[in-house]
């Protein structure tokens, strides 16, 4: 018997190199993509526990108070309300600028009160598959547990980054919100929901301007010709606003959609940038921490 060192080495190098190369390529196996870079990463507090659990109660001001040893959140669980089916969130027409310096006038706000403890700023892209996923999962839990309970409001912001049709959809959303916000804001949700329901691969016909308009035409109550007119007349202005919204997200550290920042209005504390279609447990933990560290 003789050990063939040369052959052995060659095989080892081959084997090792192969796995290394494939390991790098594996990055492409399931990655969602983004075209942006950003910078900051705000720090956050470090409390744990979950609102509504056996270990917590609320004082007269509605602030969660620790009453016993608390454990990490394990939600959704029996104590969390299930998302509505179909999801039909309440909308409010905001005005002015929030403490987080976001103008509410032109942005849809999902809220059941004018004075929630927490703002959730949500950046989305109509062509982003995980934004669609979040609409059918985490958003439902947030609406059922935090918006309906008047703890939080969700400010919907645009972060188009999947191609030209993303910007077109964002502009149309702006036009539509302007059109329906005072009379019937639910029409905006119907269109918004329809666009996500029709989502396919980015930059295909489902997200073209004509298709987006067709979705509007199919919803009773939306003035599609007026929407079309707005797209022609105000596109440049809306694009400018949308770019500013996106830039704000990037400045906050949002690199991927959906992206979120949670802001506690009393303490003016913010969460770190939360990216991706996170499970509800992430939001519940962060909201609880912000409210208890205030």
């Amino acid at each position, binding site marked *: 018997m003789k050990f063939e060192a040369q052959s052995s080495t060659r095989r080892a190098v081959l084997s090792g190199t192969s*796995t290394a190369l494939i390991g790098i390529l594996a990055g492409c196996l*399931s990655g969602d993509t983004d075209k942006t870079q950003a910078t900051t990463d705000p720090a956050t507090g470090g409390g744990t526990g979950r609102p509504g659990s056996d270990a917590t109660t609320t004082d007269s001001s509605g602030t969660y108070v620790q009453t016993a040893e608390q454990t990490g959140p394990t939600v959704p669980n029996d104590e969390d309300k299930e998302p509505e089916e179909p999801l039909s969130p309440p909308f409010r027409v905001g005005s002015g600028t929030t403490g987080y310096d976001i103008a509410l006038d032109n942005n849809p706000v999902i809220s059941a009160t004018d004075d929630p403890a927490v703002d959730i700023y949500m950046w989305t892209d109509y062509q982003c598959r995980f934004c669609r996923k979040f609409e059918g999962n985490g958003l439902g839990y947030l609406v059922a547990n935090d918006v309906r309970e008047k703890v939080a409001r969700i400010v919907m912001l645009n972060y188009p980054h999947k191609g030209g049709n993303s910007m077109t959809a964002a502009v149309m959303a702006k036009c539509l919100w302007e059109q329906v916000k005072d009379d019937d804001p639910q029409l905006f949700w119907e269109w918004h929901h329809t666009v996500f329901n029709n989502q396919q691969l980015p930059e295909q016909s489902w997200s073209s301007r004509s298709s987006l308009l067709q979705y509007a035409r199919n919803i009773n109550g939306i003035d599609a010709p007026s929407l079309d007119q707005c797209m022609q007349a105000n596109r440049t202005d809306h694009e400018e606003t949308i770019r500013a919204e996106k830039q704000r997200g990037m400045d906050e550290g949002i690199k991927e959609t959906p992206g979120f920042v949670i802001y506690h209005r009393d303490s003016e504390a913010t969460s770190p940038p939360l990216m991706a279609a996170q499970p509800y447990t992430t939001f519940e933990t962060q909201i609880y921490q912000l409210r208890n560290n205030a």
Partner: protein
Amino acid sequence: MSVDFDSYRQTGLKELRSFSDELVLALRYPFERISRVALTLGVGVVTFYFLILFAQPQGLMTVLRNPEFITLTWLEQMFMINFTTIYHESVLIVAINGIYAILTGVAITNMIAQLRMMQVGSVANVGGILPGLFAAGCASCGPGLYAIFGITGAMSVLPFQQSLLRFGGIALFLVFLGLSGDPRSCSID
């Protein structure tokens, strides 16, 4: 002229046959014993889990920067969110991830076999194995790294939603497994 062509063809066919024989041996070795099967499938399952988890690399980065978010519930729910999203998009992509995960298991099992049979003291041998162990241990860290370096945008313009690279990755895996061959064949004359 024709003699040369026939000669080249014969040599090529011989090489191809030799390669396919080696590939079969490399793929067969991990399934010859229960312990190897367990190792291969174990590595495969772990790889598959991380491949799916890395579908939203920035989501993972978010919780890595804020470890208080990481719970078993989060790990379970994040996997399901990613899995159902990918499954809804294409069953084929799930299958490709599965194939890739199993091939990673095969490569790791074969590599361990080679490691046990080699003189580990050889710098060249270890140098050849370590990159593989590292890469396979973090088989899907690519998207996260791409995101960090801000070059994921470049990938988004690749055709077929990166499926071409996915297939390419598997093809390359098979090529190198075929070149490596049976992990036992290199140690004993």
